[in-house]
């Protein structure tokens, strides 16, 4: 109908082709069309499978390398908390207790297990079976419970990382003394195993401790909390600023040269390498404003600068996708522009804005380079307790551990990657959830 009409208006009405011929032509082309469709679908599937395969490869290799980090080798020792062993005098106040010789307790216990060890060299090797962190564990126990003094107690204490690696099978037994563990230490370990004094247990230290030079004492908590504070600062700054900028540019700003220029610049900023933002942060926040080094506050400021363009661009896209009829409806009722935006446009654009923000945050969470510039790469043992404390973040922690020579940090690196991935999955699920949640309203 349409066809004939327009052709007659155009002036060359060649007469309607017989109906059967049309169908014939359609039929003859049909096979080709179906083929094209199948081919297209195949391409899509192949692409998705390839993507999934790479993802699986990544996950498998990381999990395979890292899952052992969630376990830790412990040695059971009878600890005699006698005042003698502790080197305590008559004083029992807190200061005296915290100054006491807890290393001595471990050593005494080991000596009583292996009375035949006498030479100084062998003794040192023997003491090296237990982690230096055992001292702190004992001290904390005594400080918490002072009436332990005078009692003998059987305790599980963390083994040194070399023992841990050996028990987990990451290092081989060597006949000579060339490896990390000497032959004599292997013999002691065998005896401890035979006596049931060695056990692999859940590694809670990994989730409760900050960084350490000793792999068996190193934990992810410092970096995770640092990341949390940094992202908190980032989101608190970049979300409101980004949304306000997007709303102003999209709904209020006149379209002229200046706004065009601003738009070009925002798009440019989104593509600037992140290290440049780090340098900027170093020059402005640290050197000029004198803000503390390595602090989540500064990290958050730098990452806000980095994510702002992303949030603004996503926000503007979300605003343009709100149908203009909604704006017309509100304006036609006499709503001011601010009312129109606040009551109708912004709520409809929110899911898109939140998604953009969370994706920006996910990118910020994985960012390393700009944070190196502002000193978040420092070795920090304490878990930060605020945005002003020196701290590090998850990706930087991964970088630091990957760079450490100790064999024990290899599995820690992979475990830290797993934690980071978990964070990312959580954030992206939150993005999906929020989008669904806000969209479901209508």
């Amino acid at each position, binding site marked *: 109908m349409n066809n004939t009409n327009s052709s007659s*208006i155009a002036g060359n009405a060649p007469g309607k082709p017989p109906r059967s011929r049309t169908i014939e032509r359609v039929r003859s082309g049909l096979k080709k069309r179906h083929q094209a469709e199948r081919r297209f679908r195949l391409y899509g599937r192949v692409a998705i499978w390839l993507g999934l395969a790479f993802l699986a490869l990544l996950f498998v290799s990381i999990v395979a390398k890292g899952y052992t980090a969630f376990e830790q080798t412990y040695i059971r020792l009878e600890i005699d908390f006698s005042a003698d062993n502790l080197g305590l005098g008559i004083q029992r106040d807190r200061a005296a207790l915290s100054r006491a010789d807890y290393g001595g307790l471990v050593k005494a216990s080991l000596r009583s297990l292996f009375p035949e060890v006498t030479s100084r060299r062998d003794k040192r090797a023997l003491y090296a079976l237990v982690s230096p962190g055992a001292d702190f564990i004992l001290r904390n126990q005594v400080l918490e419970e002072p009436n332990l003094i005078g009692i003998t107690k059987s305790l599980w204490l963390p083994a040194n990382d070399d023992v841990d690696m050996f028990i987990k099978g990451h290092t081989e037994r060597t006949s000579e003394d060339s490896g990390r563990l000497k032959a004599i230490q292997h013999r002691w370990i065998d005896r401890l195993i035979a006596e049931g004094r060695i056990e692999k247990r859940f590694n809670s230290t990994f989730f409760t401790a900050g960084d350490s030079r000793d792999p068996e004492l190193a934990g992810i908590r410092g970096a995770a909390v640092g990341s949390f504070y940094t992202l908190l600062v980032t989101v608190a700054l970049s979300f409101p600023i980004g949304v306000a900028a997007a709303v102003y540019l999209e709904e209020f700003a006149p379209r002229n040269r200046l706004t065009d220029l601003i738009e070009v610049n925002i798009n440019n900023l989104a593509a600037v390498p992140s290290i440049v933002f780090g340098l900027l942060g170093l020059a402005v926040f640290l050197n000029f404003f004198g803000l503390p080094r390595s602090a989540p506050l500064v990290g958050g400021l730098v990452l806000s600068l980095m994510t702002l363009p992303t949030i603004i661009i996503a926000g503007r896209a979300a605003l343009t996708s709100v*149908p203009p009829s909604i704006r017309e409806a509100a304006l036609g*009722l*006499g709503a001011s522009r601010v009312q129109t935006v606040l009551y109708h446009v912004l709520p409809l654009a929110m899911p898109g804005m939140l998604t953009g923000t969370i994706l920006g945050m996910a990118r910020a969470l994985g960012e390393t380079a700009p944070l190196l510039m502002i000193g978040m790469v420092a070795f920090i043992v304490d878990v930060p307790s605020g945005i002003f404390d020196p701290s590090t973040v998850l990706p930087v922690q991964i970088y630091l551990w990957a760079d450490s020579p100790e064999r024990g940090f290899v599995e820690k690196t992979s475990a830290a990657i797993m934690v980071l991935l978990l964070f990312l999955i959580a954030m992206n699920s939150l993005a999906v959830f929020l989008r669904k949640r806000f969209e479901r309203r*209508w």
Partner: protein
Amino acid sequence: MNETKEAVGQADQFEQAEVIQVVATPQSTARVHREHRTTIGECRVDNPRMRCTDVNVFYDDKQAINNVSLDIGENEIIAMIGPSGCGKSTFLRCLNRMNDTIDGCRVIGEILMGEENINDPRIDVVPLRASVGMVFQKPNPFPKSIWENVAFGPKIHGLYDHKSELEEIIVTSLQRAGLWDEVKDRLDQPGTGLSGGQQQRLCIARTIAVEPEVILMDEPCSALDPISTAKVEELMMELEEQFSICIVTHSMQQAARVSRRTAYFHLGDLIEVGETEQIFRNPQHQLTEDYITGRFG
């Protein structure tokens, strides 16, 4: 103009309109503008709600309305008809300054409402739009509950002191829009979940909840089925008692059924205006006659 008319002789209305634009614009628009048509018929009424004098509208450099003068009377329905693209919507949007929202659109001329020239840029559009409401071609309820749809206008203008007053406004608005019985049990459900005709009546309810003096309707029934159309028309005739209504329509029958006066636009000119009966029975201008007898547009 002659070859235009012949070329599109038998095609149906919608397609015709498109063709006219394509075929007629290059040479004939220019001629039309040089000629400067004067309006046939009486564009003035006693006691007008709104009085437009020499209104010109430009989109950037392109003129969409030429020197249109027209009165909107008290409690009357005035229909605006004409082929697509002749500027009916543009003119309608001048009356509540909705053209302000379009970049590059300039409105020149005087539009008096009472003593005030509402086309003065110093005039605040918020109270203006509260007294000149608008219903759009495509039903556009807010994606919120039916209740909130109607409540929005009274809320932003602060038309009530207590919640009970708001409730009364909402109920009466929905009743007058003939929608109350259909939605009274589901006021908390989304307005976007209603049928097209119901949505359009919801939009009307939303508009009258603000108690405007004039209601502008831009092809309010073009997206509706005949039954919904009949309901909306019935509604308009009831509302005439209280409001002035300007309706743009593509349906000649609709214009004939509901309006008291009719204005015929052509390529930005107001060609003819007068009592609806007279326009339809005895059009003075050749273009008007061609249009209403269905010879084009």
